[in-house]
C-alpha cells in the first residue's frame, strides 16, 4: 500500500456525501426486512450496519445501491432523493460479499470497467487503473485474471473497481466474510486507512461485531428491520441503549434485581440508578459486562470454573441464589480465585441497564 497524497486527492474531491435513510420499509413476502429505518450518515463517516442475519442491513445497503426498491421511504444522498434513480446511474461504489470480479477481464480491465462504460479513452483508463491498483497495493497484478488471484487480492481489486468512478458513497457488503481470519484483519485495517485517506462516506455491512467496532466511526445496530442504536463503538459498548444492543455486542450478564420507585434498581445488595425501560417495583434483570464485575475472595458466591484468556481470566460464578455469572479478572489475580473458591461479587458505581426479566 503506497498511496501518495495525489492519488488520494483524486478521489477525495468526490467523497464526503451525506446519506440519509428516511422511514425505509421493505417487505419480502411474509418477512419484513426493513421496518421504518431512519439513519443519517455524515460526510466522510464510516458507519457499520451491524446485526444478526435477517435484520435488514444488507437490504438497506442494496437500496442505496439501487438493487432493491423500498416499499416506502426514501434514500437521500447529499439531500437529493435517489430512490427512483436506476442502479447504473447512482454514484455509489459497491464491494460484494462474494467474489464479483468479471472473470473474463484482467484485474486492470476490471478496475477500468466503469470508466469504459462512461466512454473514457483507453490511455486515461489505463492510467487511472494503474493509480487505483497502486492505491490498493497491487500495482504488479494488473494483467492477472481473477482466477489467478487469491481471495484477498480479488477483494482489493473489487475495492479499486468500486473506487474507480469516484463514487460519493462506498458500500461494503460483508466484503471480508469469505476471507480467512488473518487476511480479514489486514484488509479490514487497510479499508479503514483508505477510507480515512479518501474521506469517502462509507456504509459497511457486517455481522461481525469485532469488525464493526474496530473499523467504524459509528456502529448502527439493527434488529428486525429497525435501528436499535447508532453510536460510536465505545459508547455502544459501554452504554448500550437497549437490551438487544447490550446482549448482541460483547458478552453480558443478567443479574436478577428489583426496581425501586425512584428510578433505581436494587441488585447484588446495592441500590444503583437504573437505565432502560422498566416498571417501578418489579423484578428485572440488570445487565452488566463481565469485566465490570468486581470479584473479591470470601463470600457466599462460588467460582465454578476459571479459563485463561491471556490478559484476563474468565470466571464462571454461581451466586447463592443459583444465578450463573461470567466475570473477567486480570490474570495476575486469578490465583486468588481458583475454581471452588468462595467469593463476593460487587458492582461498579454506575447506572445499570435493566431489562424485563427473561426466564
Amino acid at each position, binding site marked *: 500500500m503506497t498511496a501518495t497524497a495525489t492519488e488520494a486527492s483524486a478521489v477525495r474531491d468526490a467523497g464526503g456525501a451525506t446519506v440519509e435513510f428516511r422511514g425505509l420499509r421493505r417487505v419480502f413476502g411474509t418477512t419484513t426486512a426493513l421496518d421504518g429505518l431512519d439513519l443519517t450518515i455524515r460526510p466522510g463517516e464510516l458507519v457499520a450496519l451491524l446485526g444478526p442475519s435477517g435484520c435488514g442491513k444488507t437490504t438497506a445497503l442494496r437500496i442505496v*445501491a439501487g438493487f432493491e426498491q423500498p416499499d416506502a421511504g426514501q434514500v437521500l444522498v447529499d439531500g437529493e432523493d435517489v430512490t427512483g434513480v436506476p442502479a*447504473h*446511474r447512482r454514484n455509489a461504489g459497491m464491494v460484494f460479499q462474494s467474489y464479483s470480479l468479471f472473470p*473474463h477481464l484482467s484485474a486492470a480491465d476490471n478496475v477500468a470497467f466503469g470508466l469504459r462504460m462512461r466512454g473514457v479513452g483507453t490511455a486515461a483508463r489505463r492510467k487511472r487503473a494503474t493509480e487505483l491498483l497502486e492505491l490498493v*497495493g497491487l500495482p504488479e497484478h494488473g494483467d492477472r*485474471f481473477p482466477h489467478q488471484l487469491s*481471495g484477498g*487480492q480479488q477483494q482489493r481489486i473489487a475495492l479499486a473497481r468500486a473506487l474507480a468512478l469516484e463514487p460519493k458513497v462506498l458500500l461494503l457488503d460483508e466484503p471480508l466474510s469469505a476471507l480467512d481470519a488473518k487476511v480479514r484483519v*489486514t*484488509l479490514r485495517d487497510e479499508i479503514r486507512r483508505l477510507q480515512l485517506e479518501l474521506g469517502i462516506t462509507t456504509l459497511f455491512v457486517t455481522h461481525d461485531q469485532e469488525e464493526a467496532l474496530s473499523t467504524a466511526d459509528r456502529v448502527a445496530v439493527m434488529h428486525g428491520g429497525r435501528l436499535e442504536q447508532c453510536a460510536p463503538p465505545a459508547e455502544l459498548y459501554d452504554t448500550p441503549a437497549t437490551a438487544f444492543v447490550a446482549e448482541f455486542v460483547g458478552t453480558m450478564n443478567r443479574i436478577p434485581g428489583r426496581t425501586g420507585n425512584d428510578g433505581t434498581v436494587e441488585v447484588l445488595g446495592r441500590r444503583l440508578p437504573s437505565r432502560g425501560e422498566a416498571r417501578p417495583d418489579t423484578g428485572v434483570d440488570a445487565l452488566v459486562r463481565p469485566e465490570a464485575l468486581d470479584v473479591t475472595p470470601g463470600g457466599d458466591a462460588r467460582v465454578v470454573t476459571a479459563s485463561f484468556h491471556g490478559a484476563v481470566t474468565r470466571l464462571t460464578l454461581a451466586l447463592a441464589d443459583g444465578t450463573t455469572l461470567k466475570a473477567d479478572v486480570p490474570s495476575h489475580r486469578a490465583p486468588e480465585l481458583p475454581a471452588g473458591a468462595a467469593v463476593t461479587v460487587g458492582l461498579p458505581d454506575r447506572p445499570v441497564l435493566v431489562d424485563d426479566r427473561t426466564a
Partner: protein
Amino acid sequence: MAAITATTAKPKNRPRYWRGIVAVVAGLYFLGPLVVSVIFTVDVPNQGFTLSAYTGILGAAGFLSSLRLTLELAVATIVVVLLLLVPAMIAVRLSAPRLRTLIEIVCSLPLVVPAVALTAGIVSVLRWGPTTLARTPLYETILQIQNPSFPVVLVLAYVLMALPLAYRTLDAGLRALDLVTLVEAARNCGASPARAVLRVVLPNLRGALLNTAFLTLALVLGEYTVASILGFTPFAVWIVGIGGSQAQMSVAVSVLSLVLTWVLLLILAAAGRGPSFRTSSRKLKVKETS
C-alpha cells in the same frame, strides 16, 4: 478439452503403464475400424491403390449443393437456438427464478418425442396446411417454408431437436457464473442492464455458447430421419443415396462424412477461441500474499 486434460494430469509417483493400455485399447477401438475402412476404400481387388471411390463422390451430382444446404441449415439452427434460449435463460435467472423449472421442462420435452413421431406430425401439418389456409396469406408461407433450396421447416424441426442439448449446455455454463452478482457489479460500474448482459454475461458464457453451437452443428450434420422423410436432400440424405450403389463408395461416404464433421467441429472450436482465453493460463495459481 485437450488443454484441461494436459494441466490436470500432473505426473505422479504412480505406475502409469495402465494409461498406455487404455490408450491402446481405445485407439484400437476407435481408429481400427476407421483405418480398415480407409484401406477398403482405396485398395480395390484387381485394381490396386485407387481413389476412385472418393473422386466418384466428389464428382457426383449434388455434392456441393447438399453440403451447402446442410451448412446453411446448421447455421440457421444455431442462430435460432441461441437467440431463443440465451435471452430467455438469462432473463429467467435474473428476474424470474421460479420460471426456471418451466423452461427446463419445455426444453426437455423434445427428448420424449422420437424424431419419427415429430416428422409424422410435421407431415400432417404440411398436408393439412395448404387446403385449410388456401384462401389466406398463410398459404404462401406454408409453401415457402418447404422451399427445397432452403426448407425453413427443417430448421424448425432441428431447433426443436436441439433444444434439450442446448438447454443443458447453456444451463451448465450459467450455473458456473454468479449471474446476479456479476450483473449487479456491472450495473454498479455504470452499465445499463443491456450493456451488463452484453459486456459481462455473454463474454463469460462464451464456452457454453460454443458448446451449444458445437452440439447443434453435430446434430444437424448427422440428421437423416426428418430430412429424408420430408423429402429434402441435405448432405446426410444425399450421402446415403449415393452410397447405396457401390460397396467401396458406401464406405468412402461414411469416412468422408466423418472427416467432414470432424473438420467443421475443429473450425468451430478454433473460431471460438478468442484472444482473452489464450492469454489466461490455469497453471498459474497464486498463493495468498496479502
